[in-house]
């Protein structure tokens, strides 16, 4: 199989990740952060190694700033619902995934208002201005994606954070598509809340994510429960990371995530990024010269794009193309990608698009295989396309 659905979940996982997960079942089979026996302590040490690796990778203040979540969606929910109250306003972008849009709409039913700032691909000044225009007196949070999960369009999150801070507003970033792919420096970029997926560009197992913040103690909790600390008290502990981590942790997943972060660090995130961009630029060039292909974005310029490319074959529903590609052994994601806002922005809300996203393991042969399959699909559906 040619796997190009890495924007959803990276596959395959590095050998080191697979080994770490297996090892965790063997060596860390007890609850971390609970008991004091040797296996529980060993499990706690492994969790701590992952926290330290993540804090170091994203330049967070320390390992205590890393709270493990099930995925990026959970982290986003923790921020939005932990910070916003009736009467508050939040600024998001026009390219958000439903991970942001849906909790914001749920909050809107309880008196929170929001504004979608327009993004201008390739013009960061205009994008920042749009965010400035969206800020209101009661804005309590700016939250936006770092890179569109459909179009790969990058948002200048460092500049947006600087703008938000001018008004005393905290900045949260949904880095589902960028963590492990684009450089993220929480301190330099001024990111107060970083929401990350573990199973995408960080090559960890599914069911892993993180909320990284030094402001976690100030968040109202969405979930309360056992933390292994302050057990006499009925209130949720205020300290991080326990405040945001109730119940037993995903020990094997976190062990795998640690190995994934180390894999990315060792290989070099910039090297991985440029490799993926190079593959997509080749694909873009091939698709540009192929009759009947509808492209929505220019050849991905690394300054403005993450390695995600979506397109359509004229006259064919994106889902049909996705299904046909699957028959040829090519795995992509077709449809709306849980991001109707991003499709509305590009005028593809009715038809969706076919999304391609390579990984560190993708090759030029994979891209050529995709192009060959698309040519066959085009030939087969010639009449429908004309």
């Amino acid at each position, binding site marked *: 199989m040619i796997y190009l659905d890495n924007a959803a979940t990276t596959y395959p996982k590095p050998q080191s990740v697979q080994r770490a997960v297996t090892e965790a079942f063997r060596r860390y089979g007890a609850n*971390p*952060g609970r*008991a*004091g026996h040797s296996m*529980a*302590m060993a499990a*706690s*040490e492994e969790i*701590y190694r992952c*926290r330290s690796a993540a804090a170091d990778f994203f330049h967070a203040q*320390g*390992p*205590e700033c890393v709270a493990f979540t099930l995925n990026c969606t959970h982290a986003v929910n923790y921020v939005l619902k932990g910070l916003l109250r009736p009467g508050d306003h939040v600024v998001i972008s026009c390219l958000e995934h439903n991970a942001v849009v849906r909790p914001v709409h749920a909050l809107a039913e309880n008196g929170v208002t929001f504004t979608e700032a327009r993004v201008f691909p390739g013009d960061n000044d205009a994008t920042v201005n749009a965010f400035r225009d969206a800020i209101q007196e009661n804005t309590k949070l700016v939250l936006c994606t770092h890179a569109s999960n459909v179009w790969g369009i990058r948002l200048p999150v460092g500049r947006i954070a600087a703008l938000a801070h001018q008004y005393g507003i905290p900045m949260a970033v949904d880095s589902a598509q960028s963590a492990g792919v684009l450089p993220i420096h929480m301190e330099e970029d001024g990111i107060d809340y970083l929401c990350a997926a573990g199973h995408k560009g960080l090559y960890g197992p599914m069911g892993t994510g993180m909320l990284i913040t030094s402001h976690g103690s100030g968040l109202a909790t969405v979930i309360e429960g056992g933390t*292994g*600390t*302050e*057990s*006499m*008290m009925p209130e949720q*502990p205020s*300290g*991080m*990371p*326990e405040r945001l981590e109730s119940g037993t942790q995903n020990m094997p997943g976190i062990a795998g995530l640690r190995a994934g972060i180390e894999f990315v660090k060792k290989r070099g995130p910039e090297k991985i990024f440029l490799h993926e961009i190079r593959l997509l630029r080749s694909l873009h060039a091939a698709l540009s010269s192929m009759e009947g292909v509808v492209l929505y974005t220019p050849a991905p310029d690394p300054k403005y794009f993450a390695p995600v490319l979506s397109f359509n074959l004229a006259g064919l529903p994106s889902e049909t193309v996705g299904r046909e590609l699957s028959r040829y052994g090519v795995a992509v994601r077709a449809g709306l990608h849980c991001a109707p806002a991003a499709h509305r922005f590009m005028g593809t809300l009715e038809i969706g698009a076919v999304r391609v996203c390579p990984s560190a393991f993708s090759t030029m042969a994979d891209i050529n295989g995709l192009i060959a399959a698309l040519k066959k699909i085009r030939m087969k559906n010639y009449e429908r396309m004309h």
Partner: protein
Amino acid sequence: MGKPVIVIGSVTYAMKGRSILARYGIRSSVERIYRSTNVRGCGYGIYAPQRTDEAERILRREGIPVSGRTTRGPRS
């Protein structure tokens, strides 16, 4: 007299504290603390058999939330 353990609460902060103390050449280990009069329930602490007072001062200075002292033992 039991051996003093610096009560931290969070296992994460306890491990961070251990790393900090190592930088100062103070050997320590992280231990589970069960119910104690010093803490609000179970949690974790740092056992630093030598230079304990200095260790506690360093931890406080470095922002580790120290909540007191207890003594080492299975149900201290």
